[in-house]
């Protein structure tokens, strides 16, 4: 039976970390796992939230449209079975602190309560619009998020948070589930929620199970402590007056510092979390909206326009989740018993070059390199008119007729997934996907894991001319020997020819793929095995 893993992504950064986690799942880094992903954000119209949904939809539909038939697999692309849930506190009707807590009436009925609120919250904080998140006001955010979660658990209406909690209750009654929280400590929603989430979901589970479940006692908790890594345009005086409260990036470093002091000191947090992963960059020069800089005239506080580019640190955060998932249970239990929290960190080379082991450690570096590189190769074989999966599905490959019954939406979703993963063809130009964004965030060239040539094509034609048989990996380190030669003399050396030859050979000599029932998944498994042999990983 597949292992269960519960992951919560909170706030804008949390959304992007989940996005990276989904890409790890697509590589096959979470084999044989049912992942329950809860996306938690106050701003449900946020651009990052909508991009996450696109990635999630593409991933899930690539596995198959029928949710009930989706299962976790081993040694294949898209191996993890992702169950996605989302929850946003409803600030549509009541959009300020005062409105949510009925400040007007309370002032007359329970004056001491409003006095207490006034003591810890400034007037601007009580009055700003919550639809775009907690805007770095963590003292307000923690309280509001905690209550939103409990309210949702008490609500007679069904919501996705309750579905997530039901799974967590079931898992905690049958064992010791692992819960990992992805979010930043310097912003609003994530920073507000990380300290209170274990208590909040535990209390909510207790409400839902009438006291039968004690998630806090049975589950292991881990989280990222993601410090400031980007900055954005400072708001003008007019914008400040208008919005009352705006999170400004000049305070991010200070916010991070204070948050780290809190996490180092707070006994409650230490007794609930078994592991923290401290992540950060040495500067805040990353501009997540760089590509849209020319069109931005004001500070984006949230909403559709807030669609920040991805950064490699979000992949590091996702890898932290992977590490937590693979941590020895005895170590977590020992920490739990002793109310001790491990603080994990890793320094990267001064050269600024990121290596596979920087993300997953020495033990898993080769596996990570293999699966990441193979997913890139897979995406390149599914590009443009030469889309291999679509051609196999539509019977365009005469020698491969086993997959013509594959669901067309699987092939379409796979294409959509690869558009989001690597690049999307727009006319003859290329639109950046997640991988290109994180490559840029790492400083470009060969600073990020792979060969610089992989990222240099600017047009679709250039991309298709690229020799991805030889230039996926760098010329040194892991992957330098994982190449293959072109074949087919009359085609002046074809990249596709050896791939198809190997595919046919793998199909005819292996049986594992036949054990799967879903045609699409059979095909992905075969492509996974084919690429592993082609790039000499076996």
């Amino acid at each position: 039976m597949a292992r269960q893993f519960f992951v919560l992504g909170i706030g804008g950064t949390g959304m992007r970390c989940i996005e990276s986690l989904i890409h790890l799942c697509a590589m096959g880094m979470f084999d044989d796992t049912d992942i329950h992903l809860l996306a938690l954000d106050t701003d449900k119209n946020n651009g990052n939230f909508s991009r996450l949904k696109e990635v999630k939809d593409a991933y899930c539909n690539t596995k198959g449209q029928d949710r009930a038939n989706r299962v976790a697999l081993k040694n294949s692309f898209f191996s993890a079975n992702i169950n996605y849930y989302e929850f946003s506190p409803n600030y549509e009707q009541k959009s300020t602190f005062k409105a949510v807590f009925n400040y007007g009436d309370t002032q007359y009925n329970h004056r001491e309560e409003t006095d207490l609120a006034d003591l810890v919250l400034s007037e601007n904080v009580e009055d700003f619009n919550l639809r775009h998140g907690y805007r770095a006001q963590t003292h307000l955010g923690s309280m509001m998020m905690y209550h939103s979660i409990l309210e949702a658990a008490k609500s007679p209406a069904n919501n996705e948070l309750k579905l997530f909690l039901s799974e967590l209750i079931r898992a905690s009654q049958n064992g010791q589930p692992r819960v990992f929280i992805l979010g930043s400590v310097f912003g609003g929603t994530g920073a507000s929620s990380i300290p209170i989430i274990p208590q909040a979901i535990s209390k909510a589970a207790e409400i839902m199970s009438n006291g039968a479940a004690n998630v806090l006692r049975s589950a292991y908790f881990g989280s990222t402590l993601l410090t400031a890594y980007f900055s954005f345009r400072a708001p003008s005086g007019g914008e400040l007056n208008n919005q009352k409260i705006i999170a400004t990036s000049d305070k991010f470093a200070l916010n991070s510092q204070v948050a780290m002091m809190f996490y180092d000191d707070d006994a409650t947090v230490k007794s609930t979390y078994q592991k923290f992963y401290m992540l950060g960059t040495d500067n805040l020069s990353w501009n997540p909206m760089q590509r849209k800089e020319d069109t931005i005239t004001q500070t984006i506080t949230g909403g559709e326009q807030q669609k920040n580019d991805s950064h490699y640190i979000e992949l590091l955060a996702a890898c932290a989740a992977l590490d937590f998932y693979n941590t020895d249970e005895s170590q977590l239990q020992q920490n739990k018993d002793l109310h001790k929290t491990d603080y994990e960190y890793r320094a990267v080379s001064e050269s600024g070059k990121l290596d596979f082991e920087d993300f997953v450690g020495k033990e898993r570096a080769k596996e990570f390199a293999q699966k990441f590189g193979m997913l890139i190769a897979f995406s390149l074989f599914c590009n443009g008119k030469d889309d291999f999966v679509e051609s196999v599905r539509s019977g365009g490959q005469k020698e491969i007729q086993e997959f013509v019954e594959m669901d067309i939406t699987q092939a379409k979703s796979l294409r959509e997934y690869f558009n989001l993963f690597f690049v999307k063809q727009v006319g003859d130009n290329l639109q950046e996907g997640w991988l290109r964004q994180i490559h840029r965030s790492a400083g470009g060239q060969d600073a990020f894991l792979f060969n610089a040539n992989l990222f240099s094509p600017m047009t679709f034609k250039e991309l298709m001319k690229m020799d991805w048989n030889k230039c996926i990996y760098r010329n040194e380190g892991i992957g330098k020997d994982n190449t293959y030669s072109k074949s087919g003399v009359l085609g002046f050396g074809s990249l596709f020819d050896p791939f198809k030859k190997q595919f046919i050979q793998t199909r005819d000599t292996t049986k594992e793929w036949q054990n799967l029932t879903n045609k699409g998944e059979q095909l992905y498994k075969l492509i996974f095995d084919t690429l592993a042999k082609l790039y000499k990983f076996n």
Partner: protein
Amino acid sequence: MTPITNISQLNQLMNSTMVYAVVVGFVALLLALLLSNMFPWEGGNDRSYIKRRIAFIVIAIIAVLGFWLYNDLVVMTHIHNMGFQNMFKACNLKCMGINLGVYLVAGVALMFTFRHSKFGSILGKEKK
């Protein structure tokens, strides 16, 4: 080449021509096999099997016609007797059949034997 002046020489020539027809058929087949492997598989709607099919047919035509023409234009000049020439012409036609037969029968047998190979793809769509 020795001029053909008697019936025993002619019979010997016709026998060896038939053997050569078989050899040429196999050589042509080998050439078609090599050439078909040089055409790479194509992504998308793979039409590379058509190129291989054309190559297979062209090689067949060249081998058969070439062998027939060689016999007709080169070997025939060494036969001076008109009757013998007619006998050799008939043999040459038979050789054409042998050449083509060997090429096609052995070729198709090979295609079915190695159905998943490039050479096998000349047959077209595979049944599931």
